[in-house]
Structure formats: C-alpha cells, structure tokens
C-alpha cells in the first residue's frame, strides 16, 4: 500500500517537475530531454496501472521514435537558446494567468468526483492478449483507419520534406 503510494508520488513528482522544465528550459534540446523524462514517468504510471504492454509501447513509440524525431529536427536545424526570441513579459503574464485559470477550472470540475480506488483487476486488461482481442474485434475499423492515417501522414511528410528544387529538376 504505502510502497505503491510512494511510488505514485515519486513518479508524479518527476512527471510534473520535468514537465515544468520542458516549458521553462531555454534550450530546446533540454526541453526534449525533460520531456523524455516525463514520458518515462508516465510509462512508470502505466506499469503501476498494470498496463505493461502499453508502457512498453509508450516507451518505444514516444521515447524511441517521436522524441528522436524531435531531437533529430532540432539537431538538423541546430537550434539553441539564442535562436528563440522571447515573448514580452505581458504575454508571459497573460499566458501564466490563463493557464492558471484553466487549472482552476479543471480542478473545480474534478473536485466534485468521489474517491474511487483504482484496483489491479483480476481480469488483466493490460495484457497483450486482451488488448489484441479488443483492438481487433471491437476496434477493427478504427484500427484500419488509423493505419491509413499513418500511411497518409508518411506520404505527407515525405512530400513536405522533399526538396522542391529536386522536383523541379526532375520534371
């Protein structure tokens, strides 16, 4: 009981802190690295929630692919803190206030909910088998559609990334 709770607090602390650092650190590379830490904390939460498969996929997809892409782009563009212009203080203040407002409203809406315990289930919903069963039975159509989406995104990315001059030369 306490172990789980402690773990939860620790992971949450890490997640929130590094999420904040994502926003606040000046160097985009640091932002990326903090975000990766956040993702790891979230993956830890997944494991806590008995969703090991999802945790692994989360790490592979987010940390292994998406964030690498981010890092890749930042490296290619060679961005560092000097390159970012800062917003005016007024804008920053406004941003903070409105985000705070959002938080307040969210908390307000959550506050009413009762205390529900998350229990590790007898039925292992997080196992590969269960996931697969649900995914390929109930969600087959969305699954197929999302595969199409990925394909389209891939083509789109390639088209966008393609050098225009090359295209001209080819034609």
């Amino acid at each position, binding site marked *: 009981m306490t172990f789980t709770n402690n773990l939860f607090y620790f992971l949450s602390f890490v997640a929130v802190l590094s999420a904040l650092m994502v926003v606040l650190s000046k160097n985009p590379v640091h932002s990326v690295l903090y975000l990766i830490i956040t993702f790891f904390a979230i993956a830890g939460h997944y494991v806590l929630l008995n969703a090991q498969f999802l945790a692994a996929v989360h790490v592979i997809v987010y940390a292994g692919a998406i964030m690498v892409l981010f890092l890749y782009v930042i490296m290619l563009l060679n961005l560092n803190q000097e390159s970012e212009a800062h917003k005016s203080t007024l804008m920053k203040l406004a941003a903070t206030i*409105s985000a705070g407002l*959002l938080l307040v*409203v*969210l908390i307000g*809406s959550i506050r009413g909910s009762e205390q529900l315990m998350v229990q590790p289930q007898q039925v292992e919903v997080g196992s590969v088998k269960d996931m697969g069963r649900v995914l390929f039975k109930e969600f087959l159509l969305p699954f197929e559609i999302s595969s199409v989406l990925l394909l389209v995104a891939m083509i789109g990315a390639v088209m966008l990334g393609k050098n225009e001059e090359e295209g001209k030369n080819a034609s």
Partner: protein
Amino acid sequence: MVSTSTLISLVPLFPLLGFLLIALNANRLSKGVTAVVASGSVLISFVISMILFFNLLSLAPEQRSLQVELFNWIATGKFSASISFLIDPLSSLMLLIITGVGFLIHVYSIGYMHDDEGHNRFFSYLNLFVFFMLLLVMGSNYLLMFVGWEGVGLCSYLLIGFWFKNNDYTAAANKAFIMNRIGDLGLIVAVILIFVQFGSIEYSNVLSAAAAGGGSEILTLITILLFVGAMGKSAQIPLYTWLPDAMAGPTPVSALIHAATMVTAGIYMVVRNNILYTLSPTSMGLILLVGIITALFAASIALAQTDIKKVLAYSTVSQLGLMFVALGLGAYTTGIFHMATHASFKALLFLAAGSVIHGLQGEQDIRQMGGLRKYLPITFAVFVIGVLAISGIPPFAGFFSKDEILAKAYEHGMVIWAFALLTSLLTVFYMFRLLFLTFFGQPRAKADVLSHAHESPPSMTIPLMALALLSIIGGFMGFPEVFGGTNPLAGFLEPLVATSNTHLAEHSLSHNTELTLMAVVVALTIVVIIAAYIRYVSRKHVPAANERNVSALQRTILHKYYIDELYEAIIAKPLFAMGEFLQQFMERLGIDGLVNASGNGVVGASRYARLLQSGNIGVYIFIMVIGIVLILSANLFL
C-alpha cells in the same frame, strides 16, 4: 493431397491470380504468356471443378453440400457476412459450365483477339469476369452473390465497351450498365429485406427459415424484387434492350457473357431461391408471364434482324424467356437443364458467328454473306450442329431440354404450351433463315472480302469443335424418363429442389402423351425447316436492303417494335424534362439563391470579422484557451 475445402477456395483463386498477373503486368507480358496464363488459370479452375464435381458425386445425395468459410468479412452488430463458398449440385454444375465453356472461349479468344492491341487487357477482363462469375455462383450468402453479380456487371460493361474508341460501343456499354443497375436496385433491396426478415443472409439459414415459415406477403415482395434483379441480368422484358446492344463487344465476350454464363445468373438466382418462389405463387405467375412474353417477343424480333450477332442475341433473350417459363412452372431442374444445353450450343453459335466475322474481316450483315459453305467448311459444320441443337432436332442437346419445357408447359395448360411451341417454331425458322442466308446460295460479299475469306486458325476451330461435341451429346445428361431409365440431371439436382417439390402440386404426363407431343413438335419443326428452305434457298429470298420495300409489320419487327424509341419517349424524355425543370427553377432560384445569400452574408460579415485575425498564432491559441476555460466554467457553474 489438398483437402476439399482448400480445393474449393482455390477455384476462384486462379482466375483472380491470372487477372492480377496480367493486369499488373499488362505492358510487360507478351501476348503468348498472357494467353497461356489466362487460359491456364481457367483450365486449372476447370480441373478443380471437375474434381469437386466427382467428389460431390461420391457423396450421398443428402450430403452433397459443402460449405467452406474463408474468413469473417463483415461483422457489425447483428449483421455478419463471411467470405464462404458453397458447393452443392447447382453451383458445381454452374462451375463446370463457367469454367468449361469459359476455358474454351479463352482458347478461342487467343486466335480471335490475336491482332488486337488490347489483347492483354482483354484477357485480364476475361479472367476477372470468370472470377466474379465464380464468386457469384459459389458465394454462400446473398451479399457475396451480390458482389459477384456487380462484378460480372462491371466486367460486362468493360468488355462491351472494350473498343472504347467507338462512341456507339461506349453508349451500348453504358446502356447495359444502367439497365443492369435498375435490376440491381431490386436485388439489393431484396437482400436487405431478406436480412430484415430472416436476420441472416446465409442461404442455408434463409432458405431453411423460409421453408419452415411458409408464404407471406413479404416473401412475395422479396421474390419479385429478386426477380427484378434477374430481369436485368437475364434480359427479360422490360429490361432486355441492353443485350442486343451488348453485341458491340468482341464476339468471345458475347459468347461467354451474353450467352453462356452471365445472363444465366438470373436463372441461377431463381433456382437457388426456389423455395422462396415456390412459397409465393404470385411471383411464379409473374415469372411465367414475363418469360413467355419475352420468349415470343424476342423470337419475333429475331425473325427480321439482319445482323448475324443480333439474331443470336435476340435468340438468347428468347431462350432465356423459355427458361423462365420453365422456372415459372416450377420446373426448376428443367430450367437449369435448358440453361446448360443452351450454354453449349449458344456459345457454339456465337463463336461460329465470330469465326464467320473473323473470316470476312469484320462483316456482320447476313445480307452480305451467303454461300460461305465452301470458304468456311469447319465453321459451317459446327454452325449446322448448333442450329440443329437449338431447333430441337433429336438427338441434339436442344431437343431434350426444349422438349422437357414443352412437356412441363403442357402439363400446366394448353395456352402456355401453345405459346411455347410457337416460340420454338419461330426459333427454328429464324435460325434456319440465318443458316441459309449465311452459308447457302450465292456469295454476296464483296469480291475483295471474299478473296480473303479463310477458315479460322486452329485455336478458334478446336474450341468450336469441342462445343459442337457438347451440343450433340449434352442433351443426354437430362435424358428423359420416357425413353426408359431415369433423368440423371434431375436426380443430381433433386436435393436442391426437394423442399420445393413437396410444396408443388405433382403433375405427371403419361408417357404416351409425352411421346405424342414430341412427335408433333418434331414434325412441325421439320415443316418449318422446309418452309425456310423454300423461302431462302429455293427462292433465294434476301432481306431487302431498303426499308421501304418491306411491309409495315416487318419494318416494326426490324425496328424491334420501336421499344428503344418507346423507352426514349416515355422514360428518358420526361426525365430529362424534369431535370431541366429542376435545374432551371429549383437549382438556380431556390438552392443557389440560398447558398449565394449565405455566402454573401458570410463575406459581408467576415469583412468585419477578419479584423480579429492578427495572423499571430500565439494569439489564436490564447483565445482558444480562454474559450475552453469559458466553456468549462460554464459547465461548472451553470
């Protein structure tokens, strides 16, 4: 050894593979390779079909129904459809016809299409057609049948418009397509109704449920709608006009699709659902009526046609009508029997006609033929066999099947019998007219065409001979009981129609009556043949080239009773007029006005609203967040 279930799934696979192989490599494959792949794939299917057929024969009659489910195709809510194949006597017979005749026609096409630039495309379409046709007959549910149904329609469209550079041909293709859609509409509505009514679209479920449930109005509605589909596909009045026009396609297509296989889909479908029909006498009556009218009507049109393929096309329509007569009479096996024999001799006739056309460099008008006996001896021989078969001269194939229909009609009543007999005699007349005009008498073709007239290559003549053989012996599969023994085909199909037979009143004709009928029919036939001989050979009558020289009746017939014009006047014109009206008033004033008004309004409003757009994304996001906060708080506090 591969299991039977695998074999079943292999049957449609090979034509599909053939299609994919050819279609994807159309520009790369040589003509020879394409031809071998296309025909080979169908041949393999044929061989497998044979194996399946004999497998089926080896089973006890009650067990002769193999179903193999490949995978679940659609599963949403209660609705589920699987890709699964059903092999029973009916579909296995159909398989044999499709793949067997199909294979022969493939081989024939090798010679016929050899010099065409679309050679590879043609074969890919043919293979695709065979695939869809197999799907149609093998599907174990209505949806799969519908897929096949649509697929063959598509292939038919593609093949009719094969020479798409000719506008008329494209128009014919369009016509066929649209006509078929009308029928398909009926079919799909019927399928939906079936699902609503029975909660399933599997044949097994539906048919057994229907048999158990008995007749009802909804069943009548379903069957009529199904029959609408059949009318479209099998070219029955009033949806028949596309078929003669479909002769625009290459001749092998006419033979395969528009004589032997696709047009019989309607027959197949009705027989497949025979229980439903048996349970709704109204529909049976409708079928009978439509069938007999179509048969007579088309036969009369055929009398005056001068295009060799058109004659055959109307003949097909007429024969299909006859088959529906049989079905309307509840004689399902008879219908199938006639369908099978018809498939062989009509394919033969078409292909022979194609051979003639091939030999005369594309000439189709029989007024420009005559005396071709000497030039095309093999074609002549097989054509004669075909004509004898369709005319019902014993012991050729047509004799047995036609006679069976006539006998059934006689059981039912003299009127039907009389009409059927009339149709059959008309058939004899126009077929012999065709034969005499084409092959007898003096050559009327232009000298230069004639000088090049030649017998077709072996790849064309060998399939002809094979089909001729079938036309000769094909009738014996339905050898009537009158001559002793049992009817093997009827026995084979028995499990299929057993339930229906229990519902149908048992007629039986005494052997004597039957024999007498046969004698009468044969005698009349011979009389008609002699008449035709006198008219076209002795008197050397040739249809006039000029319309003014013919009688009004003849002219009417020649113009197919002005049916096309009638359709044009009563359907197309009003439709166009209504479209014009809607375009003028509703569209321009009503809808456009509304749309434009809203557009103008937005433009006017946005002239001011756009000032909000600073173009600064940060600001947008900011506003968005504020919006979210507002919405959430509204949710929270209100």
